């Protein structure tokens, strides 16, 4: 019973069709609070589509999605966000012409209860500003607060995205390839940051960098051609013959063994 209650995010038999093409085929998975659940698979396996289905950016053809036991399948992205689902995008999606602090403050504002107050300046809302500062602190970007977001490095922009997600105080965080395009040093910092996210939250991580995945994941789901071909603890998945054959291929073995 208590195990059931731990499940923060649950997808049941999700299907997404684009015309004749099945991008996601009967995918089921669940993510518990305090756990990082990684979704891996070759390009075109449907991982990003899955994240978009979970966040509501795409609507599912069939299947259901539950957040903390509540069915959110019919909700649009902003309602899912208010239900506790935060996400980052594969390609950095920030307010490029606003400052770093303004970006995070907007995120904090959206979940402040008085998100759309028409009176008073945003600068005067102490709780919003405090939460924004806290989120910036957590990702280590406080020193960048007054800078225009588009002037930061790619890695810092990705950190900013995570700060924005944190400022919305989510129960579940969806990360779509957070390490894409990062240098070595930036990636190391980001991995540490992601690890810190799971405290009290459920994290679903889509990532190509196998080193990072095996360093971070508590649970793994492997996708190929839209469907799930294996899931479980990383060690079990690594041993799974079907996964090795379908996904890891000839040179993939080395990567996994090395990890």
């Amino acid at each position, binding site marked *: 019973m208590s195990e059931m209650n731990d499940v923060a995010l649950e997808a049941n038999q999700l299907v997404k069709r*684009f*015309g*004749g*093409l099945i*991008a996601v085929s009967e995918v089921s998975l669940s993510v518990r609070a305090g756990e990082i659940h990684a979704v891996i698979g070759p390009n075109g396996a449907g991982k*990003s*589509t899955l994240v*978009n289905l979970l*966040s509501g*950016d*795409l609507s599912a053809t069939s299947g259901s999605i539950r957040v903390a036991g509540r069915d959110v399948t019919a909700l*649009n*992205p*902003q*309602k899912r*966000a*208010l239900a506790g689902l*935060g*996400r980052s*995008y*594969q*390609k950095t*999606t*920030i*307010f*490029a*012409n*606003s400052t770093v602090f*303004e970006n995070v*403050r*907007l*995120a904090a*504002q*959206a*979940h*402040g209860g*008085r*998100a*759309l*107050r*028409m*009176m*008073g*300046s*945003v600068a005067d*809302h102490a709780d*919003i500003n405090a939460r924004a500062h806290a989120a910036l602190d957590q990702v280590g970007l406080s020193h960048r607060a007054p800078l225009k977001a588009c002037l930061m490095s790619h890695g810092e922009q990705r950190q900013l995205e995570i700060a*924005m997600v944190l400022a*919305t105080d989510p129960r579940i965080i969806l990360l*779509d390839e957070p390490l894409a395009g990062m240098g070595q040093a930036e990636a190391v910092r980001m991995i540490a940051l992601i690890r810190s996210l799971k405290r009290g939250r459920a994290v679903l991580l889509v990532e190509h960098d196998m080193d990072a995945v095996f360093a971070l994941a508590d649970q793994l789901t492997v996708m190929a051609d839209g469907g799930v071909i294996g899931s479980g603890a990383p060690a079990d998945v690594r041993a799974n013959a079907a996964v090795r054959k379908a996904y890891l291929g000839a040179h993939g073995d080395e990567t996994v063994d090395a990890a």
Partner: protein
Amino acid sequence: MKASSQSWIVAIALAVAIALPLVAPTYYVQFASKALLMGLLAVALNLVVGFGGMVSLCHAALFGLAGYSLAFLTPEGEGASIWLSLPAAVLVSSFAALVIGALSLRTKGIYFIMVTLAFGEMLFYLLHDTKIGGGSDGLYIYLKPEFGFGGAALDLERASTFYFVVLVCLVLGVALVSMLVRSPFGHALVAARDNERRARSLGFPVYRIRLTAFVISGALAGVAGYFSAAQFGFVAPQLLGWHLSATVLVMVVLGGMTSVLGPLAGALAIIGLEEVLKSNFEYWKLIYGLIVMAMVFVLPGGLQQLASMVLGAKPASEDDAVERDMTAPHDDAATDRLRPELLRSEAKAHV
């Protein structure tokens, strides 16, 4: 511009505006009232266009509807009570904005422009082709609204009194828009303009935010339309036509969309330009049209850009910012650029 020098300019402009009726002949006072009302309309439109990123071509219709409301509410032989007719007129404009906005905001980009234009023209044809508002002849408002409170009354028939009432409305309108822009609501509105997808995923109800801004803007347009109709004593369907909407857009862009007061400056400049051209050239619209076309290419940042070019005081990076704001693809294009994965999946689907 630094904040302090900007507030100095505003203070001086306000002082000049207050002193104007004391020194200028009646004709100029009336002309100034007209210009200020256009300024209020432009400030209202900019809430939607500049801060909301929604290019509306129906604001003339909202403006004109309020004017028609005054005409309907003015009894024969006396002026309408401003306490009744002004709220009623603003309510009519707001309601029209609510209906048009609710439908139009289901669309984006080019669609939004076309749909607002079409609904605006619908109201034009409604008044033009039916007998509701006197058809194409329009309606006369023989007496200006009566502005009484307690035992006293303001005589709006006096040009200078009318002017001061308009000035107060403008100041209140500017104050309202300034407050909104600084508020959490205003920041959410701008966020939805800059990156709709991100705004949604943060949990902002983008549609509701935009519709609210659209209705507030429509209400302010209604205030401007009400006093315009009162000033001219006449309403005709042309008041609702989209050429006026487009002209106000020109004012907004010329004045600069990034500030609350910019459009007011744009309105004064355009009204002044029109007056000068009209009195000097037979084919003034040709020159006017060419100026508008030239503005798109030469002065995309509007008067703000011109000022910084002339003064040469601003650092180059700020000039760039003005241009970037103007040339940045709006809303739909921007979201598309940020949606590679969606594009890719769509492309797959089409194979």
